[in-house]
């Protein structure tokens, strides 16, 4: 048999031959000093080339998701523990979570809570409760309605709430960083009750394209009632 070509030696090393070829070439290499030497030389060369390629590799900073996940979980555990035990930390977490949510989502829609027991015209169709971020509160209504009332009351405590009565369930209450947006339609007939902390310095009410209404709460018992139909009629 003639000597094994370099190409076939590579195929032999890479196990790319069929069984018969493999046996034949191995038999030859075992018995041929020249081919055995070339075989060993090729194996050494391949190892050198591979090592040289790998030694020059660039390092890519691929994030290790598992490590990052564990770190994030550890931070969460610490924050949760502090949030439970340290009141200022709890307030800070609430505030940061709210801000982060607004950044991510754009606007914040609070999960509906059970409607407060304000006995208006039947069961509430939507409700939210939340903690206002600042001392100026902006209450927006998308538009004027066929009929309905907007009642704003100040209450003792730091929590605010909003409830929709008699709505078609299309009305939505969206908590914003600066206040509350009520998404309604001009054909709606819903009533809205909004309770705000008496500690607010100012309340601004914007209904559709109307001029902004400004209120300055004077105490815990303030109450403003706005006839949405009257607003529609050109207050």
């Amino acid at each position, binding site marked *: 048999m003639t000597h094994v*070509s*370099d*190409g*076939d*030696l*590579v*195929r032999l090393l*890479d196990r*790319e031959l069929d069984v018969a070829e493999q046996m034949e070439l191995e038999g030859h290499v075992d018995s041929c000093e020249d081919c055995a030497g070339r075989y060993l030389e*090729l194996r050494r*060369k*391949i190892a*050198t*080339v*591979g090592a*040289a*390629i*790998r*030694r*020059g*590799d*660039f*390092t*890519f900073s*691929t994030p290790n998701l598992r490590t990052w996940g564990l770190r994030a979980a550890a931070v969460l555990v610490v924050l949760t523990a502090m949030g439970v035990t340290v009141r200022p930390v709890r307030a800070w977490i609430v505030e940061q979570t709210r801000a982060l949510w607004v950044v991510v989502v754009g606007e914040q829609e609070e999960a509906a809570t059970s409607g407060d027991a304000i006995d208006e015209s039947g069961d509430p169709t939507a409700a939210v409760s939340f903690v206002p971020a600042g001392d100026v509160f902006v209450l927006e209504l998308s538009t004027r309605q066929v009929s309905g009332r907007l009642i704003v009351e100040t209450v003792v405590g730091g929590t605010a709430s909003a409830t929709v009565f008699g709505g078609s369930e299309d009305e939505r209450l969206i908590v914003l960083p600066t206040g509350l947006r009520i998404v309604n339609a001009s054909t709606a007939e819903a009533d809205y009750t909004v309770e705000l902390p008496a500690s607010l310095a100012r309340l601004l009410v914007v209904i559709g394209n109307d001029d902004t209404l400004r209120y300055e709460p004077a105490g815990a018992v303030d109450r403003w009632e706005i006839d949405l139909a009257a607003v529609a009629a050109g207050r």
Partner: protein
Amino acid sequence: MRLGALARRHRTALVRYIARYTGDPDLAEDVVQETFLRLRVRPPSHQEELKGWLFTVATHMAVDRMRVARRRAELEQEAGHLLPVAEPPPDPATNLERQEARRMARDALAGLSEKERTALLMREEGFTHREIGTAVGTTTKSVGTLLARAFDKFAARLQMEEAS
């Protein structure tokens, strides 16, 4: 599993392969990004061909990009507009030894033909001769010869570099 998710499994190997091929890690990231975009638009007809498809498409893209860059550099030089190429900012984590090793590997690879380079680097990534043959457009049997030539050239160049 969706094709995109399957393809992402090969991403690291693909970036490494193209970075070795081009000697440019930024270009490698670009090329791989583009390859994944191409995958969305025109995926391979069979899922089992995915890995080979990714490496082949990325190789062709890398070759094209290098040709364009080379041609642009030539044109700029002819026009006398050649600006000094800024060295990348020194990376404190990268030691001199690695930089030297990288230069030597890049020079040695540069001495190979496109086919030889592709075959050599695809072999390093564990491709079979059949897959390499498909990628470079040659028969499975002749891949051994192609590789043998590539090993010879690369090793000779490396030896020369080390001697100097």
